[in-house]
């Protein structure tokens, strides 16, 4: 069991060498590696991927592939883990509630933001697509997130976002959360129109906004 192999695995994942990464993962498992050690490797690799994404070296295809590799590695180690889940690690991290607003079914942008927030250590709860204002309100009450992210691709999302922000206000929850909006058509004008706190055009601006609001995640 060598740290050399661990480092190699980190680099294989970060360099998008899917097949080799999975082979080496299996090798480490066969050699008796601790599941938690492998999950640490994943995290370290994802940090590199996230950094490269921030540096415009990686783009969306790399994020998607990294996510796939991560899923496969998790599936490989999961049977070896008894009860402890890594969710607990994130209890103290900032929590972000995210969803595509009512009427809009697009989820690619939202998924990328979710991934990048996750990589950066935030505890992200993804409500999916076509999420009604009431569903956002229910989730805010139940989970008490610090931040709510509203995603939308179509122009109809302008009004859906506005309605969602208004409904959160009417439910008396507006002071408890910061609201950021994002998506293909969103800009400063729409920020004002919807009454949200911030808007962003890409996943990194979402991460930076979260850092600004609630600090670096644990």
């Amino acid at each position, binding site marked *: 069991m060598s740290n050399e192999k661990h480092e190699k695995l980190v680099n294989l994942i970060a360099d*998008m060498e*899917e097949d080799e990464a999975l082979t080496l993962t299996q090798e480490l498992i066969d050699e008796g590696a601790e599941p938690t050690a492998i999950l640490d490797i994943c995290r370290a690799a994802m940090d590199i991927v996230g950094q490269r994404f921030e540096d*415009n*070296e*990686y*783009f*969306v*295809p790399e994020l*998607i*592939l990294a996510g*796939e590799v991560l899923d496969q590695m998790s599936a490989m180690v999961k049977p070896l883990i008894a009860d402890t889940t890594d969710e607990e690690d994130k209890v103290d991290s900032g929590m972000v509630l995210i969803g595509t607003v009512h*009427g*809009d*079914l*697009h*989820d*690619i942008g939202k998924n990328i933001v979710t991934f990048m927030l996750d990589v950066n250590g935030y505890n992200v709860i993804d409500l999916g697509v076509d999420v009604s204002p009431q569903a956002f309100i229910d989730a805010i009450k139940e989970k008490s997130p610090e931040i709510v992210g509203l995603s939308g691709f*179509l*122009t*109809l999302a*302008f*009004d859906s976002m506005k309605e969602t922000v208004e409904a959160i206000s009417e439910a008396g929850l507006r002071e408890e959360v910061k609201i950021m909006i994002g998506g*293909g*058509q*969103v*800009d400063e*004008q*729409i920020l004002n*129109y919807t009454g949200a706190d911030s808007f962003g*055009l*890409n996943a990194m601006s979402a991460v930076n906004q979260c850092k600004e609001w609630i600090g670096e995640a644990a």
Partner: protein
Amino acid sequence: MTPKDSDRDPKELYQERVERIADTVALKETDRVPYIYLTRFWNAKLADMTSKDTMYDVEKSISSNRKAIELLQPDAFGAANYAYGQALEKLDYHPLEWPGGGAADDVCFQYIDKELMVPDEYDEYLFDPTAFYLQKYLPRIATGFEGLKHFPNFPTLSEWNIIYNLRAFANPELQESFKTLMEVGEMVDHSMTKMTEFIKEMIEAGYPMAIGGFCKAPYDHIVDFLRGSKGGMLDMFRHKDKLLETIDKARLLLNTNVVEGAKLVGCPYVFIPLHWGLDGFMSPDQFNEFYWPSLRQTIHDLIDAEMTPVILWEGDCTTRLEFIGDIPPGKAIYWFERTDLHTTKDVLGDVVCLRGNVPPSLLNTGTVDEVNAYCKDLIEYVGKGGGFILDGAASITDEAPIENVVAMAESVRKYANK
């Protein structure tokens, strides 16, 4: 206030508009900047209808289209005909949610991103695309196509085998599919026939068509309609060679009949809306390997066939500007959604006619004065010396207040491009 065009002879107007756009494409200076009208469902809003009304009643679709065109008096128009509601229902077309079919009555239809071809099937697609479509793809995208999976695999058959295999046509599922297709065919034919009459009416009233045909960037086609967005991205790593081979193949397939169709309707503008070429989505290297070469070839092929490709560059494509100027000058239209048109004019102004890009946010939530100011700036800077067509960033948004759209349409007559 300049006099309205509606007082003039339609034939003369038609000719003048056709030439204005043609000259603009050729990067020549014109009397004023042209404006082209396209939308999805703004016409419904204008006519106090829901989107669903126009999807389920071609007469309503036509009357609202007419109302919009007569109000805006554009230099060219695309008829917003989506009056296929009943046909979509009967066909049970899965990849779409539409007003009346899964979506609310007053919204736009949405395409559902889904993996419709698995990676193992690249070879089947490459080997015999139509067999793949008949036996696998079509049955997956609509209940009405399901029976086609029983269609005989003719190329493997000869002589008697062709005759025995006619048994397949006795299959009740295949028969049911044919029956459905005949019924759906009648519905779509009805809608298209009416719309064709309407387009003729508009041409006689002096309005040229803006779109003579559609095409796709090959990579987009594979992502949108075959592999889904996730599969399409993963394949850049996992099935790179197959993906590149399929991009090449899809380019050839997609070009089929596009030129012939455009010639038939007498309109050279082939519209190619792009989906996945934008900045931030794929890297410049990936863009230059998977996206641009095949798209560029499509553009060249269309230009060689005397067509004018109209490329809608969705999203922000700033980092692409340095690559995409590599096309014959004055032969195409680049329509940008979010890319800054000032920058674009500086980089591509002497290569390609630009189009766009009044933002949806402004059209939907701004004031008439804001719209005027924005259009004035575009006309004066981007329109300078010719080579610019005013349009929305993504045409006219469905929700835009009427006065904002009217202000935009009239701005080309108000502001000079010199």
